[in-house]
C-alpha cells in the first residue's frame, strides 16, 4: 500500500501542473488586471502601473511569467532571485502588497499558532462542520432507513431537503435572527473567536448542506444494503440485530458516504465566502472569491492549487479508507 500511496502522491505533480496551466491561461484571458479599480474610483496612473507591472514581472511574456511562477526568476527591479512554486513559494499578492500568498493564508499573528492563520481558522471551522455533519447526519440517515416511512423518517427528510435546497446565506440570516437577535444566546457579530460559543452558528451553517447530503446518502445506501442477501444470511444465522446493523449494514452502507465526505471536507476546510462575509469570520474563503475580481493572479493560482491538492489528497484518503471498509478492495495499482 505504501508504494500505491507514494505513486498517488507523485501523480499530484502533473495534476498541479495541469491545474496551474489551465488557471493561468483562463485568468490571463480575462480582461483587466490587478491594478484596475472600481470604475468610479481614481485609477492607478500609467507610471505607477508600469512600475508595478515591472516589479511583479507582469510586463514579461506570458510563458516567461508562467515558468517563473513555477520555477522561480530574477526580479528585474530588485535583482533578487526567488524560487517559485517548486519551493512552495506561491508568489506575491498583488492586492495585499508586500505579502506572499502563503504568508497571507498561512501566517498567524505574532505569538499565535498556525490555527490562528486564515487557513487555520478555515481548517478548524471545516473540521467542526464536518464533525457536525457526521455526528448528526449519518445517525439521522441510519435511523431514517431503519424507521423507513415513519415520522422520524419524514422529519429527517424535511430537514435534509431544507439543508440541500435552501442556500446557506438564507439559513445563516435565519439562525442569526433566531439565536442572536431574538433569543440573544450569541451576539450577531462575534466579539472574539476565542469564545467557542460563537463558532456554533458558522459551523452549523457551513456543515448543514453536508449534513443533509450525508443523511440522504446514508439513508439511501442503508436501504440498498438492507435488501442484500448477506443481511438476510446474517439474520438467518441468528446474529443479534445490533450486530447485523453495526457490522454488516452500516459498514457497507458507508462506502458511498465516505466517497462523498472526502471531497466535501476539502470544500469545508478551504473556507467559505458566505460564512466569512456573514459572520466576519477571519478564514481564507474570501481570498478565493475576491482574488478573481481583483485579478490578484498569484492569489488565484495559489488558492486554486491549494484546493486541487486538498481534493486530490482527500480522494487518496478516501481510497485508503475503502480498504478498511471493504476488504475486497485492494490498492495494488
Amino acid at each position: 500500500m505504501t508504494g500505491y500511496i507514494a505513486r498517488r502522491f507523485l501523480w499530484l505533480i502533473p495534476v498541479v501542473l495541469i491545474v496551474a496551466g489551465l488557471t493561468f491561461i483562463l485568468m490571463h484571458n480575462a480582461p483587466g488586471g490587478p491594478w484596475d479599480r472600481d470604475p468610479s474610483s481614481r485609477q492607478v496612473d500609467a507610471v505607477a502601473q508600469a512600475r508595478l507591472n515591472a516589479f511583479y514581472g507582469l510586463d514579461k511574456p506570458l510563458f516567461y511569467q508562467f515558468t517563473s511562477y513555477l520555477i522561480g526568476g530574477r526580479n528585474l527591479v530588485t535583482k533578487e532571485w526567488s524560487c517559485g512554486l517548486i519551493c512552495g513559494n506561491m508568489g506575491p499578492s498583488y492586492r495585499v502588497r508586500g505579502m506572499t500568498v502563503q504568508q497571507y493564508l498561512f501566517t498567524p499573528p505574532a505569538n499565535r499558532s498556525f490555527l490562528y492563520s486564515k487557513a487555520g481558522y478555515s481548517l478548524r471551522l471545516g473540521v467542526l462542520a464536518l464533525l457536525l455533519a457526521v455526528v448528526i447526519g449519518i445517525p439521522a440517515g441510519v435511523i431514517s432507513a431503519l424507521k423507513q416511512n415513519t415520522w422520524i423518517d419524514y422529519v429527517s427528510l424535511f430537514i435534509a431537503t431544507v439543508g440541500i435546497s435552501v442556500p446557506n446565506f438564507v439559513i445563516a440570516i435565519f439562525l442569526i435572527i433566531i439565536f442572536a437577535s431574538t433569543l440573544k444566546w450569541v451576539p450577531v457579530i462575534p466579539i472574539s473567536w476565542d469564545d467557542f460559543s460563537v463558532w456554533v452558528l458558522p459551523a452549523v451553517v457551513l456543515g448543514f448542506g453536508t449534513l443533509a447530503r450525508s443523511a440522504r446518502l446514508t439513508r439511501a445506501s442503508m436501504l440498498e444494503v438492507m435488501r442484500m442477501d448477506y443481511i438476510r444470511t446474517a439474520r438467518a444465522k441468528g446474529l443479534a440485530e445490533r450486530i447485523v446493523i453495526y457490522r454488516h449494514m452500516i459498514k457497507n452502507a458507508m462506502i458511498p458516504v465516505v466517497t462523498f465526505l472526502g471531497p466535501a471536507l476539502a470544500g469545508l476546510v478551504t473556507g467559505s465566502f458566505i460564512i466569512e462575509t456573514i459572520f466576519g469570520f477571519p478564514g481564507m474563503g474570501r481570498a478565493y472569491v475576491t482574488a478573481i475580481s481583483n485579478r490578484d493572479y498569484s492569489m488565484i493560482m495559489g488558492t486554486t492549487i491549494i484546493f486541487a491538492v486538498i481534493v486530490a489528497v482527500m480522494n487518496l484518503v478516501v481510497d485508503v479508507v475503502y480498504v478498511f471498509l471493504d476488504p475486497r478492495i485492494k490498492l495494488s495499482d
Partner: protein
Amino acid sequence: MRSKWLVLVVVLVIASMVLGACQKAPAAPSQTLRVNLGTYPDILDPQKASFVNEIAHLQLMYEGLTKLNTALETVPGSAEKWEYNADATEVTFTLRKNLKFSDGSLLNAKRFEYSLLRNIDPSTAGEYAAITDDIAGAAAWRGADLATATAEQLAALKAAVAVKAYDTNGNPCTDYEQKTCLVLKVGTTNPAPYIHTVLSLWVTYPVKEEVVALDPDTWWTVAANHIGNGPFVLSVLEANSVANFTPNANYWGGFAKVNLEYRYITDSAVAFEAYKNGEFDIIGLAAEDLSTVQADAVLSKEAMIYPGSCTFAYMFHQEKEPFTDQKVREAFAYALNRDGWVKDVLKGLGSPTLTWIPKGFPGYDAAENRWGFDPAAAKAAIAASSYGSVDKLPEITATFSDTPRNRTRNEWLAGNYKDVLGVDIKLNPVESTTYTALTKDSATAPQMYILGWCADYPDPQNWLSVYWKTGGFAERIKYSNPALDAMLVEADKELDSAKRMQLYADAQKLLTDGAPVAFFWNNVNTYMVKPYVKGLTTTPMDSGWAGIYSAIDITIEK
C-alpha cells in the same frame, strides 16, 4: 530649622511636578464607539494605500501638514501656518513646536520630508503617488526606469525633488532629533496655490523611517508599528476581525473622548441586524434596508442621509458616432429623466445634478440649469443634428458592469431613452473588472456608459483640471478642449482666491457649453447612527463612516 523648610519645599515641588506629570495624561475613555467599516483594508501603509476603507484607518492615526475641517476648509494640521511665494511656485510650511509622535518621540519637518519623498520614490510604487506630481522633480523621479537607471542617476533625481526641511535659521535639517527643524519648503513645477490642500492627503502622512526599515513591505500589519501623529493610536489589529483605537495622549489638538472600534462585516443585512441588536453604533445603511428604516418610527430618526462627494455622468465617447455630434449629446442629456431616476431607481438615495462640481464643494454652480430633462428639446436636438432623426442614428450600445442591480438600472435607462426619444439602446453587460479595463482606455471605452468622479480634495482644481484638461481623466472619452485648457491653466496658477474661483466658474460653464457628457446625479452618504452618539459632524467627504472628520469631538452619552 531652615534646612527642614528647604527639604519640605523641595518635597512639595517634586510632588507637584509628579502630580502635574500624572495629570498630563488624561484617563482613557470608558466608552467605545463601535463602527462597522465593511471591507478589511488590504494595506495600511500611508504611501501605498488608496481605498476609502484604508484611509478611514490612516486618518485616525496620522495627520498631514494641513487637514480638512468639517466645513471642508484646509486648516493647519501639523503645520501651524504656510505661505506661498509671489508666483505660487513654492510653499513654506512652519510646523508647530514640540510636536510628538504617539510614542512621545519628536516629530520634526525632516519626518515630513522623508514621507513626502517616500511617496514619490519609484521603488515605493504608491498607487496614489501621482497626486503629488505637481511637486517639482516629482514626476521625473517617480517615472525613472529602475531597471536601467544607475544609483547615481536615481540619487540625482531624488535630490532634484523640491521638498526640503530646514531649521528655523534657514539651514538644511540634519536629523530627526533636531528640535529646531520646523520648516518644510515644497516647490512646484507650475504655480500651484492649491498644493497645501493636496498635502493634507494621506500619502503625505509622516511614517517613521526606522519603523518602515523593520520590514518595508509588511511593517504596517503590526498595530504597534503605527506610531503616528493623529488623534488616535491603533492598539489592536486583527485581520478581517477587529481594529481598536485609543486616544493619542501626545496629539497636539486634544484628547479624544471615546475609544474607537472597527469591525469588518461586509454583509449589510447582518450589520443591520447587529445594529438593531445594539452591537454597533454606526453602520452604513444599505439601499435594501432603507424602506424598513423609513417605516420604523425609531430607526428613521437614526438614519443620516446627506450629500456625498461624487458626481456620476452618462459618458459619451467624443470620437464614436453618433456622439461626435454635439446635438446628439445635447439630445441625450435633455432626454435623461434625472428626477425619475433618483426617485424610482435610487429610491431617493442620490440627488439629480446638472453640474460637475457637486453641492457642498467650492465651485458648485447653483444657477446652472442647461440640458435638464426636456423631451421636446431632446427631439428638437436630434432633428437639428447631422442625422436628422432617430432612425438614422447608428446602433447605440450602453455598456455597464454586470450586477443584478445594474441590469435593472440600465433597463430603466434604455426604457427612458425609448420613451423620450424613441431610440433603441442595446445593453451590453460586462464583468466588473472587464468594465474598468474597457473604460480606462479611449480605444476600448464604450460608446456610452456611466462613470463617476469623487473628490480627492475639495478644490475646483481637482474637479476640473485633473479631470477635464487634455490628457486628464476625460482622455478616456477623447475629450479635449484647448479653450478650456487655457482657462484652467490660468485658474490653476491664480493666487487671488476670488479671481481663481471665478476662473473655475467660467471654466465649468465652458465645459457644460459643449455638453460633452450628461451630468446625472450626485451620490449621498447613508449611515445609521445611534442617538446617544453626540458631537458628530458629517461632511460630503466622510470616508468609511459618518463623522470621521469630527472623530476627536465625538462623545457617547448613554
